[in-house]
């Protein structure tokens, strides 16, 4: 059974930690919002997007979701604002302050 990580915080007593510090389940890092690390974010200009998806593989933070062969809105909860996607877009559909 997957570990309920909402019960595991820095106030958790030793009795309530998982045995061997394992975490059953996957992808629990989604609950950790690295989007707070930066105030500068890329902006997605949907009108200019041709859905080439070239921005998708370059994201180090898996913040460009793809569904039915189309990219969606940026995941700002996790985006650290590195700006790589801005450069990857051939159509100027992504902009970010300080990146050209």
């Amino acid at each position, binding site marked *: 059974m997957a570990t309920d990580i909402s019960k595991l915080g820095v106030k958790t007593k030793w009795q309530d930690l998982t*045995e061997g510090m*394992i975490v*059953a389940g*996957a992808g629990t890092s989604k609950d950790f919002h690295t989007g707070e690390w930066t105030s500068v974010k890329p902006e997605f200009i949907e009108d200019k997007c041709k859905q080439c998806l070239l921005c998708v593989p370059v994201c180090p933070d898996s913040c460009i979701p793809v569904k039915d062969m189309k990219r969606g809105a940026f995941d700002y909860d996790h985006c650290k604002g590195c700006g790589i996607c801005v450069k990857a877009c051939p159509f100027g559909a992504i902009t970010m302050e300080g990146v050209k």
Partner: protein
Amino acid sequence: MAGKRDRLSGNEAIAIALRQINPDVFPAFPITPSTEIPQYFASFVANGQVDTEFIPVESEHSSMSAAIGASAAGARSLTATSSCGLAYMWEELYIAASNRLPLALALVNRALSGPININCDHSDSMGARDAGWIQIYAENNQEAYDNMVQAFRISEHKDVRLPIMICQDGFITSHAVENIELLEDADVKNFVGEYEPEDYLLNPECPMAVGPYSITDYYMEAKRNQAEGTRNVSRVVKEVAEDFEKLSGRKYGLFEEYRMEDAERAVVIIGSAAGTTKDAVDRLREQGEKVGLIKIRLFRPFPADEIAEALKNVKAIAIMDRAESYTNHGGPLGADVMSALFRARSQALAINYVYGLGGRDVRVEDMENVYETLKQVIADGDAGEMYRYMGIRE
């Protein structure tokens, strides 16, 4: 309870126990004097007597690493080693324990380098005593075999889930052919049972992540959580021993008390020299001397209260360490026993001997002399030098 009489070396005995257990994964790297264990086992694999995945890795660090990987994956796994091999695993020993992985290590005790030496002492396992492993020691091949059969039941118990080290004395028991009584294959299989972990890497129902980075906020709680497993070991060791006695007729506990009923002088010792000491005890008992012996079986976790209780009527104690620990005041067993005595407010006089390093032989006469020394200690009412060497040229 059908046993089979046989004569085997300690290494053969362990290998046969492992054949009967038929573990899932056995990564191994040779080192004297444990080498024969993977050798025998490889022949069982080659002849189809087991269906274990035998992985001949390139080092002991890797044998323990692979055993950890296999165990986390959901497989019953183990390895074997000695001496520098164990030292090379050092980091991994801690990881196995902190991950709460119930894997086993057949350790054939040998002196650590340097100088390099292939013979018996306990410096290898004693150096690993704080790694979080269960450590169980054997006096002879029979005990090595019996302990191996019980190992996974202890290690995999849901209240324990800690790795276990089954130790025997290099060459002295590992390479000596002696009589032994083996259990039937089916009895061992039934006794050990199936390994059924709750969470494991190869669980198709639910993935698992193991081996996290722990920030300070969690680390201390994690260590305390681990210690809870250790606290349950004594109880589980006794429970498993009771079941084992029903199967084999052979009785085991946390330690063996030999002629301790009215003993005024006692030796506390680990391993093959306990047998030699029993002969010394018998000789002295024939002369009317009130001497006894405590042979440690479970050294980690250390059954301090029980040992203090067993020693409560004793006037003088010699604690025998087959390892130096360079404290300037004695060896590791000495430290544990003396601390147990202190906690129990014991008034006994105790001395701690370092003996048998690098295969230095221990004779019945040597142990008789130890009891003689204890007699003098009682007469003097003073332990004198509490940290001594036995059998040293000086």
